[in-house]
C-alpha cells in the first residue's frame, strides 16, 4: 500500500483513476490543478505522483520540474497525456525521470507502471533520458 497523489483536472478521469488505484490497495489523494498538487506534495509528501500534463494554472511538467527540484519525489513520477502528444512529452518527462502513459490509459498497464515506480528508487533528474517502458506483448 502506498499514498498516491493523482493530479488531473478532468474530475471524472481523476475519479476513475482513484477508484482503480484504491482497489489495488493504495490510498489516493486527488487534486484537480497543478498548484494544489504542489501544495499537497509539500504538505503531505505522498509516495508517488501521478499527473496529467494539461492542467489550469500550473501544468503537469512544470509541477514535475518543481517537485523534482525540491526533492519531493521518492519514486519516479507517472505522467498521463493524450496519445497525440506522447512523443513530445516523453523527452521532457524522461529527463525528469518520469514515465509517460497515454490517455485513455490502460488500467492494467497503469497498475503495472505504479507498481514498477514504487519498486524503483528516487528518480535521477536533469541529465539522463529514460525511455519509458514500451508495452510488451511477451511478458517477461
Amino acid at each position, binding site marked *: 500500500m502506498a499514498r498516491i497523489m493523482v493530479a488531473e483536472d478532468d474530475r471524472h478521469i481523476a*475519479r*476513475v483513476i482513484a*477508484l482503480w488505484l484504491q482497489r489495488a490497495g493504495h490510498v489516493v489523494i486527488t487534486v484537480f490543478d497543478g498548484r494544489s498538487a504542489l501544495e499537497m506534495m509539500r504538505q503531505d509528501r505522498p509516495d508517488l505522483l501521478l499527473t496529467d500534463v494539461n492542467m489550469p494554472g500550473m501544468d503537469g511538467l512544470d509541477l514535475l520540474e518543481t517537485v523534482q527540484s525540491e526533492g519531493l519525489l521518492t519514486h519516479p513520477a507517472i505522467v498521463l497525456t493524450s496519445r497525440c502528444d506522447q512523443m513530445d512529452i516523453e523527452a521532457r518527462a524522461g529527463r525528469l525521470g518520469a514515465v509517460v502513459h497515454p490517455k*485513455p*490509459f490502460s488500467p492494467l498497464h497503469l497498475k503495472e507502471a505504479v507498481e514498477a515506480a514504487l519498486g524503483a528508487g528516487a528518480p535521477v533528474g536533469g541529465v539522463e533520458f529514460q525511455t519509458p517502458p514500451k508495452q510488451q*506483448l511477451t511478458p517477461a
Partner: protein
Amino acid sequence: MAESMTTSGVVHRRGPAAADWSVGIFGPSAVQLPEQCLRSCLRGNPEMAAMLGCPLLKGLVRRTRPGALISEAEPLHVPELCEKGFVPWLRSAVNGGPDVLVLRPGACPNVNVAPALELVSQLVGDAWRYEQENNGLADEVLRNYEQINLIFDVSAQIAILNDASEVRRMLLMKLRYLFDADSVFYFSPDLRMVQEVSHEGGIRRGWVKESDPREGPSFNAEPGGQGEQAEIMLPRELPQVIERLRQARRVLVSSDDVAYDDAGHGTSMWGPLSETDSGFATVGIVRRNKPFIAGDMLVLDSALTFGSHILSNLRLVEQLKRTSFEAVRALVNAIDQKDTYTSGHSERVGFLARITGEYMGLAPQLQQELEWAGLLHDVGKIGIPERVLNKPGSLTAEEFGIIKGHPRRSFEVLRPVASLEPVLRAVLHHHECPDGSGYPEGLRGDEIPLAARIIHVVDVFDALTSTRSYRRAYNVERAMNILKQDAGTKLDARIVDQFIGAWQLLPKTHPQQYADWFASISDIGGEAPAPNPVKQREQQPAQLAAPVSAEQYEEQTG
C-alpha cells in the same frame, strides 16, 4: 463538548449548543462511502454530524433485521453506548446499504429522534445507491479504456504485421495478458491444430490425433520439437463448447467450476474467431480462481471481432496477391514458350529463389520479392529474335551482345509497374559476378544486390540442369560441382552454400514441387552446410525466429 467517540475516522459536531448529538453511519458498506459524498448528502442538514468508521459501532452490524427502526420503545442493548449515557436509535440498512445510528444523550429524553433518523437514513441510502452506481459506471469506463487500448495496441502493431499467423499470435498473447489467464487456447477452423499460450506467455502447438475431436481431446506435441512430447491439457468441456459456438457464434462462458485439469479447477470463456469465409477458429480463455463476468465477455467479443476483421482483410490481400501472381506467371510462361528450351524456367527460378531466401531466414516480404524477381528476370528476352535464342551452335560476338542486353530490357519492361519497384534491381543485376566480369554494369562483390546474387545462382543452376539448344541437361551433381567451382568468382560463394542447403531439404519441405520439377534429376550427396547462420545465432525455435532483412543478413553473415 462530549468526548470524541472515534479512534479513527472523522467526527463532526454541530457546535456547542447541540454538542451531544451524533450520527453514525456504519456497516459493511459504510467504508465504501467517501466522506466527501456523505458531506454533500448531509448538506442542508447542518445539525447532523457524520461519523465514519467508528470501531465501537461496528459491533452493532446486523444485530437487527434489515430496515428495522430501533427506538426507545424497542431498545437495542449496547452496553458500550449505554455506559456513556447514550440512547441509541438505529435505522438498519435495506439492500446492503450502510446502517444509520443516531445517538441521543440520555439527558434529553423528550426529543423525538425518529423523523430526523428517517431523513438521514434516506439521504444516506441515496448516497449509497449513487455511489454504487458510480462504481458500476467507473467499472464500465475502466473496461472501455482497456478495450480502447487493446485496439490502439493491436492497430499500432498491425502495421508491421502482414502475416496472419503473426496477427493470431499477437492476439492470443494480448488476450492472455488482458484476462490474466492461466491458458489461452486456439483451435484452427478445421479443429486439427491447437495452440496454447501459457500463463508465462510461452506458446506451444500441437496437432489433433483423431479426425473428430469430439471423440476426446488427444493431442500430439509439435513435430520436430527435439522429440519432446509436450502434452497440452485441454478443458474437458471442449466438445460441447465447440458445438455451442457452432450454433450461437458468440462468446460464451462455460458452466461454473468446470474441471480444468486434475490439478485444479477453473472457469473458461470461449469465442469464435472468423478466419475463413465459412469456418471459424475457436479461442478459449481459461482462468483459475477468478470467474469471468459479463464485462469480460464483452472485451473478448470485441477483441475477437477486431481480430476477425484484420484476419479477413489479410486473407483478401493474400487472395489479390495470389491472383496477380498467377496472372503474371501465366504471361511469363507464355514468353518462356517462345524459347523451346526454357519452358518453365522462370517459374522454377522464382521458386528456387524463394526457397533459398526462406532457408536463409529472410523476411517473408523479401522471399516474396525473390519469387517475383525470379519469375520476371528474363522478360526482356521477349525482344530477342528466336533465331538467336534457339541457335544450336555457339553465338557470334554480335549475337552474344544481343543476349547480354536482356537484363536491361527486362528492367525497362518492368519499370513502369510501380509495385515491382523492389524487384527491379534484382532483375537488372542478375548477371553480375562478384569478380566484376558480369553484365550489364560490371558490379563487384557486395555492390550486387543480395536478391540479384540469389537469382544468379539459381538461374545458373536451372540452366545447367535443363536441356539447351547447344547441350543436353547436366545432372544435379555435375551442376552443383560447377556452382562450387564458380563460387567466389562468377557466383557469390555464401549464396551457393545456402542454395545447396535449401536444395537438400527440398524433397522434405516442398515435396510437390520437387516431384513435379526436379525428381527426374538425381540428388547430390555430401554434407549440408550449416543452415542459416543468422537463425542459429538467434537461438529461437524456428517458427518464432525473427525474419531477417537483407541488410541484417549481410551484416550478420558477411
